């Protein structure tokens, strides 16, 4: 068992170390680009380390104070229970989300190794101890136990340490069970992508629910004004639903508190509960793991349509070759999770936000303002769309993979590739903008149609201004990205993404100013529309030669772009 564990630790270490080695086939700029991409998570890790140290120190002091009777131990333990419950929720969330970002290949490949399945399962469960969220809480709960021991309650400290180990192991088992379960549920590409899409939309919708109910809760509070009682842990515990007593965090709290109060029965019940939960979760995760290993990969759906006649529309002002590139960009993006999310999330989310605001604050001034000037909602939705579009605009040559190589092998000039890619992104923005427009008109159908049209054009103008910079940054900092992933695996290089965030705001500012001046100072809808139209036309006229100029960077970086496309 130990040798397998050592082998897996070594494997993870080598994968990390090798990812930092520069490949021989890269140029200097590519090496810098890779270094920047690697430095970001390292910086985050270093910053997290400080947080872990601070949390541990705080937990140590809290443990010692609780042991010394400096404050109510129940309160200290309550804080730990809440912190652990939040961590359990985060852990569960990531356990659900992460398998949808990885491939089942990882599990099936391990079957080729001469390792018994049972051992493989245990190694996988143990490996979840290396989860960053668990790594964060382990020092904290152990430091709390150490603080208690150092504060003169060594026995209670030992109990707390045992409870800490038990709760961490239970967390690891929960993590493993959920990971395996989700990996099994989403065992092929289509299921995985559908799951990710539904999950992200559901999480976004659920996040709006508290705000929706806030008004009712406020009303209830207003209706029954009662003198505010001092906070009591006992009263808080009484309000908790009965089922929460079975949560590992609650069992941990009961055990630690039992240790401090020298209540042997509470300690025994708490530890037994944690042990049973760990055992049950381990057995269940073992069963799912075994099922997962036996799951065949792939699974295809056959199309029965006659599909030999595929038409590619020639786009206005673009030649047939650039149109084909735009069409391929649009089709492939719309079939990816990122592309679909970009289209369906922006408009409905803005509309849902407005509905929530109207529900919660119907008498306030600013909701009234929003409903009177719905075109500002369209502008906000458009900016949201431009940000969501960054996965494509800021990584024009890193998302097609083999498709990019294909474009380099076909009779396409670099200018045609650049123009086609930009046009493809504009095509991609259109459904998102149109959906946002429809939803916003349904929610806040006020204001002159010319203001609405001006707002729409303002987003298009911002896109045009952004496009040459997008070509240039994409060619300089390409990153092989998988658009089926909502996490970092589908993101562009950190630098273009950061610059893009600033640039969208900067380049969108003139359009916003035109709209604001037109609405509030000039009160001239038609004039605002004409000025915005001129601004958009100017953006298109200036952007076109600049995109062609920026495409020279593709010529210079073609070899690196081809290597990125090949995943090298």
């Amino acid at each position, binding site marked *: 068992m130990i040798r397998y564990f050592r082998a897996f630790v070594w494997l993870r270490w080598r994968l990390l170390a090798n990812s930092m080695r520069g490949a021989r086939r890269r140029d200097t700029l590519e090496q810098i680009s890779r270094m920047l991409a690697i430095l970001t998570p390292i910086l985050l890790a270093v910053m997290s380390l400080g947080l872990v140290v601070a949390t541990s120190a705080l937990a140590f002091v809290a443990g010692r104070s609780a042991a010394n009777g400096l404050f109510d131990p129940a309160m200290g333990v309550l804080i730990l229970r809440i912190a652990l419950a939040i961590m359990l929720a985060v852990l569960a969330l990531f356990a659900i989300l992460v398998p949808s970002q990885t491939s089942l290949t990882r599990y099936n490949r391990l079957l080729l190794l001469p390792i018994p399945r049972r051992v493989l399962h245990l190694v996988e469960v143990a490996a979840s101890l290396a989860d960053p969220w668990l790594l964060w809480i382990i020092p904290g709960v152990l430091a709390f136990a150490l603080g208690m021991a150092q504060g003169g309650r060594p026995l209670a400290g030992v109990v707390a340490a045992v409870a800490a180990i038990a709760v961490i192991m239970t967390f690891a088992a929960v993590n493993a069970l959920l990971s395996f379960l989700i990996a099994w549920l989403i065992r092929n590409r289509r299921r995985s992508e559908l799951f990710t899409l539904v999950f992200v939309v559901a999480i976004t919708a659920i996040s709006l629910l508290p705000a929706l109910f806030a008004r009712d809760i406020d009303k209830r509070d207003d209706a029954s004004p009662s003198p505010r009682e001092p906070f009591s842990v006992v009263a808080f515990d009484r309000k908790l639903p009965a089922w929460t007593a079975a949560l590992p965090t609650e069992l941990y709290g009961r055990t630690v508190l039992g240790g401090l109060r020298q209540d042997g029965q509470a300690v025994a019940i708490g530890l037994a509960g944690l042990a049973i939960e760990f055992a049950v979760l381990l057995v269940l995760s073992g069963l799912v793991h075994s099922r997962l290993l036996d799951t065949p990969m792939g699974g295809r*759906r056959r199309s029965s349509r006659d599909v030999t006649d*595929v038409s590619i529309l020639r786009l206005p002002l673009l030649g047939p070759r650039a149109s084909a590139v735009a069409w391929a960009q649009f089709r492939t993006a719309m079939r990816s999770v990122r592309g679909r999310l970009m289209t369906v999330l922006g408009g409905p989310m803005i509309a849902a936000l407005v509905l929530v605001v109207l529900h919660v604050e119907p008498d306030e001034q600013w909701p009234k303002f929003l409903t009177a000037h719905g075109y500002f909602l369209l502008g906000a939705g458009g900016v949201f769309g431009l940000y969501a579009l960054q996965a494509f605009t800021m990584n024009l040559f890193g998302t097609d993979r083999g498709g990019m190589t294909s474009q380099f092998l*076909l009779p396409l000039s670099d200018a045609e590739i650049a123009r086609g890619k930009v046009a493809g992104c504009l095509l991609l923005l259109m459904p998102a903008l149109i959906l946002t427009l429809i939803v916003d008109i349904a929610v806040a159908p006020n204001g002159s149609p010319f203001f609405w049209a001006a707002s729409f054009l303002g987003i298009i103008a911002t896109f045009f201004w952004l496009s040459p910079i997008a070509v240039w940054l994409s060619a300089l900092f390409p990153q092989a990205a998988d658009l089926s992933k909502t996490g970092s695996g589908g993101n562009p290089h950190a630098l273009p993404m950061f610059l893009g965030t600033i640039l969208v705001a900067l380049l969108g500012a003139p359009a916003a100013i035109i709209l604001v001046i037109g609405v509030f100072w000039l009160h001239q809808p038609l004039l605002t529309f004409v000025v915005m139209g001129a601004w958009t036309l100017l953006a298109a006229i200036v952007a076109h030669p600049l995109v062609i100029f920026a495409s020279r960077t593709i010529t210079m970086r073609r070899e690196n772009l081809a290597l990125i496309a090949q995943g090298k």
Partner: protein
Amino acid sequence: MSLAIETHGLRRVFGDLVAVDGIDLAVERGSFYGFLGPNGAGKSTTIKVLTGLLRPSGGTFRILDIDPIADPVAVKRKIGVVPEDLALFDRLTGAEHLAFTGQVHGIDRANIKARSAELLELMDLKAAAGDLVADYSHGMRKKIALATALLPAPRLLFLDEPFEGIDAVASRQIKDLLATFVRSGGTVFLTSHILEIVERLCDHVGIIQRGKLVAQGSLDALRAGGAAGLTLEERFLEIVGADRAQAKSIDWLAG
């Protein structure tokens, strides 16, 4: 006869690794040229340089009498390529790949449809034409890559290991198709590790080892250079210096 591929001192280095070391290729038009070499010899790098995916570090070359450095698009109008990694969009269907390639080559819609139907039929991909390439098996991906390379009716085909992973029926059909293509004046530049296929299909062979072109000529001339009655495999092993005597036994493998 004019040359389809002509290189002089073609060289490509990656840092301190010389992948292609001054090779002089001469591939005649209308020939079926097999480009052989052990793993890591520089075959795929050579194809990448010739097709414009990599820049040469030195030397000159011409493809179908065109300088690819000066006019890369003109060369690409006349060639078809099945590269090592197949170069396919994962999220386009097989039929869409063909339509995309056809439009980029300026072929009209009716012709794209007719050619696509024939190629999909030939490759036994008609039923899967509407599926995303991401859902294709390796063999199906290879076949659609080959169909895509053939659709614009190129005059020169670069095929990097085209028969690897393809079933026997399709393999036979593709071989026949390629033979017809060469008979009609087209040129095929093919790399393969399956020497029987090369021996059956190719009329000219070049052998590259550690980046250097160590042999080149017609298949008969190449065989005639060695002892009488040698197969291509035996002659190949002789040229690259990997004869059977070097295949020393590994004692522990015998159990």
